[in-house]
């Protein structure tokens, strides 16, 4: 395989053997965990900051504005300045709030998104854990965030927060189904839930092209459902600004608010990563049939770049709807899920199973 030149497995093996030669197996694992933890945390923070900046720029572009352009070249340090401000700002104590749950909620939200990121393959051999049920793990873990949202709404002792949290609960529980089912469509095609396997299976064609129309439908459904699951516009009912002021995080300030804010962007990143991994070939380069010269040039672009480009393409799509669509109402949101997306999804799975059974896919 040509992309082996960018294989990270040998690099990680080399570090592993180096560490094992110099210390006991127990300490090797401790040191490796520390390294991975620090790397992921750094990555998480950098991506989070970058996404906030990207959203501002994209939104400014959609709205005939310039966006941040004062702090640093093209305003790239604006988000860092904002983060520093959020770190220094006073945490306003809330009267009659359930203190323990109130403080716990942002951590649950951020931990859920932090755990999900561990399973995502960024390039060949570049992931923290390669579980054999990777896809299932990511869905399960990222759905945990709703507990944080519900706790935040409940413990804030604010009526707007409670309405926001209840909406969010109804929304995430419903849309989780569509997210899961649309991914199952692809799992049927790939025959595996392991994310690295799914990526490798797309070496000769991304699933969105390989799986005929059902894969394309699944991609659209996934995009809609995952936007809803991350509570982003046009499905941002949980924090509907014009109705509920800020929804479940109305009462949060300072760094606790920043946690919710960061988690929202990271959830978007995770969802986009999964879309890129499962439908758009993950870190696989773009290949066209027998155009060997073209395919060869594509192979020289590092897989990590492919992965990032695809992810940001999906993120851009999500930002695009957010800034151009008005918000749905709660009953329309649930109608969309239960009356349209779910039946479409179920039929889609049937068609996909049939195609796989007959061996009609490429």
């Amino acid at each position, binding site marked *: 395989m040509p992309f082996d030149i960018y294989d990270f497995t040998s690099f990680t093996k080399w570090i592993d053997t180096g560490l094992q030669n110099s210390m006991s197996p127990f300490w090797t694992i401790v040191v490796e965990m520390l390294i991975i933890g620090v790397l992921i945390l750094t990555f998480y923070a950098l991506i989070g900051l970058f996404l906030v900046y990207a959203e501002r720029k994209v*939104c400014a572009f*959609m*709205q*005939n*504005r310039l966006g941040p352009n004062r702090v640093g070249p093209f305003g790239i340090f604006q988000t860092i300045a904002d983060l520093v401000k959020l770190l220094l700002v006073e945490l306003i104590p809330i009267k009659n709030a359930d203190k323990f749950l109130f403080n716990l909620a942002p951590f649950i939200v951020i931990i859920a998104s932090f755990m999900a990121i561990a399973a995502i393959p960024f390039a060949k051999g570049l992931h923290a854990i390669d579980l054999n049920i990777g896809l299932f793990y990511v869905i399960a873990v990222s759905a945990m965030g709703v507990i944080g949202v519900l706790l935040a709404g409940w413990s804030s002792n604010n*009526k*707007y927060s409670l*309405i926001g949290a209840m*909406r969010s609960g109804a929304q995430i529980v419903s849309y989780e189904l569509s997210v899961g089912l649309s991914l199952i469509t692809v799992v049927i095609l790939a025959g595996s839930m392991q994310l690295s396997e799914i990526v490798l299976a797309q070496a000769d064609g991304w699933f969105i092209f390989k799986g005929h129309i059902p894969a394309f439908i699944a991609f659209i459904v996934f995009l809609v459902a995952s936007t809803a699951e991350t509570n982003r*516009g*046009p499905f*941002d*009912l949980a924090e*509907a*600004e*014009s*109705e509920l*002021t800020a929804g479940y995080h109305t009462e949060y300030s300072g760094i606790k608010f920043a946690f919710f804010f960061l988690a929202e962007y990271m959830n978007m990143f995770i969802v986009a990563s999964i879309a890129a991994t499962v439908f758009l070939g993950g870190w696989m380069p773009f290949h066209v049939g027998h155009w060997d010269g073209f395919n060869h040039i594509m192979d020289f672009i590092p897989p990590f770049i492919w992965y990032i480009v695809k992810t940001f393409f999906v993120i851009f799509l999500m930002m695009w709807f957010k*800034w*151009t*669509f*008005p*918000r*749905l*109402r*709660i*009953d*329309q949101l649930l109608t969309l899920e239960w009356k349209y997306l779910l039946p479409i999804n179920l039929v889609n799975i049937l068609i996909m199973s049939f195609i796989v059974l007959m061996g009609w896919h490429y």
Partner: protein
Amino acid sequence: MEETIKEITGEDQKYVINMGPQHPSTHGVLRLVVSLKGEIVRNVEPHIGYVHRGMEKMCESITYPQIIHLTDRMDYLSAHINNEAVCLNVEKALEIDIPDRVRVIRTIMSELTRIQSHQLWWASFGMDLGGLTCFFYGLRDREKIMDIFEETCGGRLIVSYNCPGGLMYDIHPNFQKRTKDFIKYFRKILPEYDQLLTGNVIFKERTRGIGRLSLEDAISYGVTGPSGRASGFSCDVRKHDPYSAYDRVNFREVLFNDGDTYHRYLARIEEMKESMNIIDQLIDNIPEGPFAVKMKPVIKLPEGEYYQRVETARGELGVFIISDGNKNPYRVKFRSPSFVNLSVLNLISKDFKIADLVAIAGSLDFVIPDIDR
């Protein structure tokens, strides 16, 4: 005991939230006490008066030219039209014949005011529904009218361009060219509004059949302006009781029958087009002549009662003056459209969702200082 349990668990139990005085979708300091059953609105009780300045009482101690500047602060988005109402009333009382030039310029300015008001309404209505981009599109185009105002009147929002007997000063030499440029530009850009919002499926779902106001209710509550006309209430003062130069232009009174939020929206979009038609007819035919009539330094109205109504961007504004022959009026009453239109909010938003309440309130287009005065 059983009563208490019933009170807590029964159908009557209400979840009361205070929307406002500080809330993003009330566009000012309006407080709506909303009783909810889950997400469903059971009752809306508007509490007003947070920006009450006692304008009508203030008018009793100031002179007529001063009143004009005060009326800017009522419905600040139709500032010019409010001025015009007072001026027309004073002129009617004094039986002054106003030069044609003044009439035409007043009409053009009024229509420009109407367009900019509807642009801002469109911008904020989009924002109420969660489409934040609309806000910037609306304000971008409104800025062009503001620039025209700034050049001619010196003010952008609160223009104070009228005075009894005519205008404060003549139009700027660029006025006609810039207005024509704007009309040309806005004709091209208005379909963009439709692409962004009107044609959107989510938008249609959010507004169609929501907050339906029947013709009977519109008439009995006195809902005027685009909100009333969307219900089929033919209430355009420009048509039925023409003032300034409205009797010499051809325009269509925008009427719909449905009366829901969607049609209130369409009525305003259509009205912008009609306003552009009116300006088109007048902008090249501004007659020559003086821009104001020479008035006495102290204006005293003869004893009596005077009423003048005009069509602002929100509906019918009535100015009622009782004069006892002094330089101050004895009593002034403004019939402001926002206040009357607000009265219908509880009637039409009952049994809809809280998100619909925001849409309905947005489509009725309140300006809070106009409600409170």
